[in-house]
């Protein structure tokens, strides 16, 4: 009859029993809806399980009493289960974190239901929900996030002034935004790009401005999940030898190949999506990295030229 495991049923009953006890008498429909528990399953448990719960010696006075008719239920003598099970710490944290993130996503008013719920849950757990944890899922302009949220909700086209980080270039694109989501501290908008005539993902913090357009679009049934980084086979590669002190490079960027060298140093083969991306990485690493292979244009004076260009801002 059910997809529920014993412990899932137990979790529900440990919540349902104290609640029903406190209500004195409630309808079965109300219990089923409140606890997301199918009515048929509920009736079965109330009939065949709960009345047999009790303590030694299981005489009638040591058992829970359930009164059940076609529509209503009341429970008595369930003193051991007079309180609901305390929310475990990790689950409490998951709820508060989800709630705070959602506030960031949907931008709720100060007296909105989510904010009220978080305050209550925090109090029940014993923490200040707004002081003990602080969850920010991504750095982005509130205003741009709001514009994109509206566009996604209303299927409106958006014109973006976008900064292509890897190529260090500013572009204008009209997109059909399908979905806004956050991952590893960044906001992304999955879109259909009208210029490329293909799905594209844009990072919200690189959008300089977003303007709602009058045009609308039909959202795809299932938003495809285009990947953010998809190094095409024809993208140029660079091979770097990097000192142990900059191990983070291997943890941060997707790479084709990693070889360990002596003293914790390593050799890394990386896809270069745009020359400026590699210039930044090399200038930042300084003496900790050396170009040892890959596309010939990254060797020679590639790094020195980039350094000289930046130095031009500092005339002596």
């Amino acid at each position, binding site marked *: 009859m059910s997809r529920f495991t*014993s*412990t899932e*049923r*137990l*979790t*529900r*009953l*440990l*919540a349902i029993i104290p609640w029903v006890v406190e209500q004195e008498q409630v309808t079965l429909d109300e219990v089923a809806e409140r*606890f*997301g*528990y199918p009515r048929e399953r509920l009736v079965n448990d109330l009939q065949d*399980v709960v009345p047999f*719960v009790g*303590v*030694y010696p*299981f005489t009638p006075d040591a058992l829970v009493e359930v009164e059940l008719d076609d529509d209503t239920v009341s429970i008595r003598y369930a003193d*051991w*289960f*007079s*309180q609901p*099970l*305390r*929310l*475990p710490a*990790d689950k409490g*944290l*998951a*709820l508060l974190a989800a709630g705070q*993130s*959602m506030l960031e*996503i949907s931008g709720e008013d100060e007296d909105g239901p*989510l904010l009220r719920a*978080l305050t*209550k*849950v925090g109090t*029940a757990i014993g923490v200040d929900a707004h*002081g*003990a*944890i602080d*969850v920010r899922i991504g*750095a*982005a302009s509130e205003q741009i996030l709001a514009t994109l949220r509206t566009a996604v909700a209303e299927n409106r086209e958006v014109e973006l002034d976008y*900064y292509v980080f890897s190529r260090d270039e500013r572009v204008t694109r009209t997109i059909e935004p399908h979905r806004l*989501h956050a*991952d590893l*501290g960044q906001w992304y908008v999955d879109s259909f790009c009208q210029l490329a005539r293909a799905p594209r993902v844009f990072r919200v913090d690189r*959008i*300089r401005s977003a303007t709602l357009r009058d045009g609308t679009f039909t959202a795809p049934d299932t*938003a495809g999940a285009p990947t953010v980084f998809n190094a095409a086979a024809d993208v140029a590669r660079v091979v770097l030898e990097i000192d142990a002190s900059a191990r983070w490079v291997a943890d941060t960027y997707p790479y084709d190949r990693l070889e360990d060298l002596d003293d914790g140093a390593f050799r890394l083969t990386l896809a270069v999506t745009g020359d*400026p991306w590699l210039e*930044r990485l090399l200038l*930042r690493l*300084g003496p900790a990295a050396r170009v040892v292979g890959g596309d010939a244009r990254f060797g020679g004076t590639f*790094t020195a030229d980039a*350094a000289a260009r*930046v*130095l031009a*801002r*500092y005339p002596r």
Partner: protein
Amino acid sequence: MTKLERLLNLTAALLATERPLPVDELRVRLEGYSDSDDAFRRAFERDKESLRLMGIPISVEPIHGTDPPGSGYRIHPGDYGGVDPQLEPDELAALHLAATKVRLEGIDGAGVMQTLGGGSVEGDDEVLAELPAHDELGPLFEATRAKRQVEFRYGDMVRRVEPWHLSFHRGHWYINGWDHVREAERLYRVDRFASEVTVGGPAVVDRPERPSSNAARRPAWEMGDDEPVEATIRIDPDLSMWARAHLGPDAEVIEHADGSIDATLSVRNVEAFRSFVLTFLDRAEVLAPPELRTDLIEWLEAQT
């Protein structure tokens, strides 16, 4: 007798007792277990584990006056019972939606809702964001809540910390609190813990009314042990928007007529500051102080 009934009765027996119950006595007091010693032991261990996984706090305590010394099980009602937050229907719905849309990796937030009476929400269950989780988060959060000290290995040292504030920022979880070894407030990245968290004695340092809750929002250049200096960088108009999203809450920003900005930052980590400036390549310039300007020039000259 079903497993569900057995688990309910085991929970009731452990909650009802006022002294720890040894296994042999539980066996007499509970129905539904096998007569065979081995089968009973195995079933009991499994049931106990099931209850613990649900978050039911079963404690193991010594039984006095027995020879050889024995131990028994019980559940302290004070550890077990929670407070019903008494959520109104609209609050439940809002919280349920949040728990469906934002996941803490590996934890079924929407499932939690059913025990709060969250019911089920109609509509799409598309996840908008998933936050990474670590085994240490639960114990850290619990220690924050219960005002306990924790110990963990971080870098080469064992730290003894009173956790104050847990935060998630730029893709990482951080814990901030009082470090008893350093005798100062410190911030740690949870994914860099080199050991499990052990929970110790009660916290003894006064927790500030509002801990530096923005600690983890601080940009990398503010997190270091260098002598703090005020640094000003100019950023070209094209990149000013992107820069603003990454400057942190404490930066002072002046916008010029052409759209370029001057941002004044408090720098405690020169290396991180240099990396930040270099992400702009030739579209940004360190204006002040002279020593940071010189540092950048020398760094670049070494590469020409």
